[in-house]
């Protein structure tokens, strides 16, 4: 009997040591994971959170200055594209040939109507330069008619953290109005619409209307977006009363 008690005591002690060791190892793993990704991303830049749906006071720069884009197209065309100090706004879509999420963007870009832009907005897809990218892979993925510029410099200028990444630039002020990332063009469009108040990202270029009508619609769109109501939201149509 005494021997049995002794054996059980020893087994219990060994198990206790093992469990304590496992818990300690688990704690170490958690600490290291936390060091890699703290979750709250206190060191992140503003673009890494959802763009705020509230309007910024006029003249206040939230995201900083934009840059013109120079590089080369897939055809070998040398490009100097103005982004700053121009009448049009620019949507820069930073993509690469190797990232899995980018595949959906490349595919969507080839679908008619898959991307909607506010009136007077130009889309530039920016990949890294030939020294960092596979030109052949990009050529195979890029749909016809999409302006693709290879420019590692633009990636550095805009401090692109990875792809896909999107930046919306106000041409007149030369300031970035919104940026971020997403899983699809549609998701990015919704973020941009909320962040900038430009419903054109969801509906495309507005039809020609009087300035007064247009201003009123923009104002209403902004308020709806601020309330999280996007085109197609059932709340826009009221309830069916039979």
């Amino acid at each position, binding site marked *: 009997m005494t021997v049995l008690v002794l054996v059980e005591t020893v087994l219990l002690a060994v198990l206790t040591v093992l469990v304590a060791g496992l818990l300690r190892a688990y704690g170490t793993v958690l600490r290291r994971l936390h060091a890699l990704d703290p979750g709250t991303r206190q060191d992140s830049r503003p673009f890494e959170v959802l763009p705020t749906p509230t309007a910024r006071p006029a003249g206040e720069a939230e995201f900083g200055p934009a840059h013109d884009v120079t590089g080369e197209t897939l055809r*070998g065309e040398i490009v*100097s594209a103005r982004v700053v100090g*121009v009448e049009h706004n620019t949507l820069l879509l930073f993509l690469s040939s190797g990232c899995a999420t980018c595949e959906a963007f490349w595919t969507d870009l080839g679908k008619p109507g898959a991307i909607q832009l506010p009136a007077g907005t130009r889309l530039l897809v920016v990949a890294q330069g030939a020294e960092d990218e596979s030109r052949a892979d990009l050529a195979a993925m890029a749909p016809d008619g999409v*302006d693709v510029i290879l420019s590692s410099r633009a990636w550095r200028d805009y*401090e692109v953290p990875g792809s896909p990444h999107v930046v919306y630039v106000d041409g007149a002020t030369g300031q970035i109005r919104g940026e971020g990332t997403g899983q699809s063009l549609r998701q990015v469009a919704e973020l941009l619409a909320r962040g900038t108040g430009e419903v054109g990202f969801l509906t495309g270029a507005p039809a020609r209307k009087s300035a007064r009508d247009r201003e009123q619609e923009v104002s209403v769109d902004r308020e709806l977006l601020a309330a999280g109501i996007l085109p197609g939201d059932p709340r826009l149509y009221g309830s069916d009363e039979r």
Partner: protein
Amino acid sequence: MTSRTAAGAPRSVVGAHGLQLRLPQRWEARLYLRDEPAEEGESLNPVVHLANFALPPGRGDFGSGAVEVMGPGQAFIALLEYEAAEAGTPLFAARGVPRPRVADFAPNALQRRLPGQLGVQRFFTENGRAFCLYVVLGSREHATGLVGEVCGVLEHLEVGRR
């Protein structure tokens, strides 16, 4: 605020194939070699497109695809090189990069006639190379200012040896 690089300074110099351009504010450029020679047996010569608006992809050598989206206050320039053997021939007898005047522009000089637009086309030789300069203005109303801008762009075109 972000830690971005401070200034969005204009990127305004484009150069290749013995051509160099310093662009003023608002103007952008695209420089490429023709996909196919203008005539059989010719070499692939460069084409430059310049505009004070966003140049779309997929343009024709004389700007089709771009002039259709031009506004009345905008201008488009195409500079096309031809075979060096053509330099100095009667068609390319004019020397130096031309500076068009408002009176030179007319709708019937357009490659593709679009409402309100005016065009001019000039052939010339510079540094032993043969070129065609083709300019489109968005409207007569803005012609004086646009011609001034066009001449400002051409002022900073340097033609070297290929």
